[in-house]
């Protein structure tokens, strides 16, 4: 077990931006996550998609960071959707009610399909 530094990379699609998250979402992830969100936000996408496929760990501080992103997205009238969460973190998104505000998809294809047609 080796601690994984967090990285966030933004990709743009028509009307949406996907942020590929990689590593552990904890206090150390704040700067990279915030910068990536601002980079995505600057292109004024209708939807921001968070890719959790490569995320190995989220702690309560990480949940707080995601709450912060959700608050910003709602303030700017952007939709926030996610995909690639493990069953355990889907459960945590439900417990915390994040899933009430963020649609959860299994993979990017289904997430983008819903973004395009939803």
């Amino acid at each position, binding site marked *: 077990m080796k601690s994984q530094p967090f990285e966030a990379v933004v990709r743009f699609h028509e009307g949406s931006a996907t942020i590929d998250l990689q590593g552990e979402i904890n206090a150390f992830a704040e700067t990279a996550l915030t910068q990536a969100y601002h980079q995505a936000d600057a292109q004024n996408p209708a939807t921001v998609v968070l890719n959790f496929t490569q995320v190995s760990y989220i*702690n*309560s501080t990480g949940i707080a960071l995601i709450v912060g992103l959700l608050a910003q997205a709602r303030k700017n009238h952007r939709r926030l959707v996610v995909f690639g969460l493990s069953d355990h973190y889907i459960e945590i998104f439900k417990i*915390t009610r994040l899933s009430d505000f963020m649609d959860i998809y299994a993979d990017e294809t289904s997430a983008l399909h819903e973004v395009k047609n939803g």
Partner: protein
Amino acid sequence: MKFFRRQTKPDEKSNGEPKSNDLQPSIPSSTRQVKPVEYEFAPNDPFLNYLISSPGVVTLEKLTMESPALEFMKNVGVKIVVPLVSQGELIGLLNLGPRLSEQDYSSDDFRLLNTLATQAAPALRVAQLARQQQAEARERERMEQELRVARVIQETLLPKELPELDNWQLDALWQPAREVSGDFYDFFEFPDGRLGIITGDVTGKGVPAALVMATTRSILRGAAERLVNPGEVLERANNLLCPDIPRNMFVTCLYGLLDPATGQFVFANAGHNLPKKCTSTSAIDLRATGMPLGLMPEMTYEENEVVLMPGESLLLYSDGLVEAHNPDGEMFGFPLLNSLITDCIDCSDQIEMLMDELGKFTGPDWEQEDDVTFVTIRRLPVLQPVAGTDGDAEGMTILADFSLPSVPGNERLAMEQVAEIVRTAGFPVDRLENLKTAVSEATLNAIEHGNNYDPAVPATIRVLKSADRYIILVTDQGGGTLIPDHVKPDLDAKLAGLQSPRGWGIFLIESMVDEMKVHTDEGHHTLEMVFILTSKDKQGVAA
């Protein structure tokens, strides 16, 4: 062949008359002048071939052949030569000048000389062999003495004593196949309490390997003093070793950094045997890729880490064990090593057990094929009751008891350590992620709120198990005041900016466990998390 000639002149007391022993070897004395003359026969000199084939005394005056040796011998006054032949081999010459009486040698003289040669040749041969053996024995003794000194010197390069670490047991064995060895191990004690551990193996054995071993050890020591990360230490050592190491030689080496407080072992491997982590149920190979030292410069070395829980150990070893053969030619091998380790998980002396098994495998007449080196690092079980909690109830077994410095990120370490110990103890797999999140959040809470991220103040984690439950206790050094009742997080309020986005920790823990309690005394808070096993969970374990 070398020709030796000794010229002897009668002493002044002699009357000049020939003596009966004129033909016997002259005995140097203070009263005689001795002038040895040396001449080396060319191997293809025809005179040499003539002497080998000659049946007896040879009168040089009668010989005519193109031979530098013959000409030389005539020039120095040799009149007759008696070849000394033993078992068909020319082993010496008996060279005589003119008789002191100036008379010619008679046929009786020739017979006497032939008889003498017949008897002298084997005696001379025996003397030559004895001298040769003495010389060889002296040379052997000299080399053995040098090797004994080399071994003493090499032993000074190994740790004179093993480091003493509370709650840890360290053992090491170094058994060269010859006087000196290419195997080595070393320990570096760092001021922050961490311990650097090296085991290495130079290709080959004996003196060449020992010389490279000494160089490698010095380079590694230098690198470990300057750098922290094991991968960087091996990278630097490799770059320094590459220009100087003899061709076709290289060094396999494992360097690990052990934190005795947490059991964390960070390691990098330059092609050495995979270290084995020995748990209560299995032996696990610890992998990290990297080329042996000395083969190619600018190599990088992968780093990995594991945590040794109380009762677990680490086995580092060279290939002298697994590559040993029995009289039937079968190799000791890894399968046997693995089964021995798992059959003897609780061995207090793993090295003694393995050496006994090696002896049984190879038999009493085994000539050790390669150097054998072991280092074992065992974290001793710490069993202490936990007062004031359900954990001191009868029937609870303490699976783990360890402390971590209060630094960011260690909550993840605690999570992995506890997950590993309960997984091997049979904790239901489908609830493992819940347990991990609960332990991580409880430890984060202790590190952040209880201990204020002070690295000198530890968070303590204890894991207990009974027939129907697991209890995990996380203790900080805060205490004194009660942990305030947490406000249930309200996501709507948080999104509206009415609540901090944070404050999820205790809520998450409560959501993950069956019971949660907080105990506070003057110096500590202990967060107790209980996972109750259902009948389904118990059936899963039994199955």
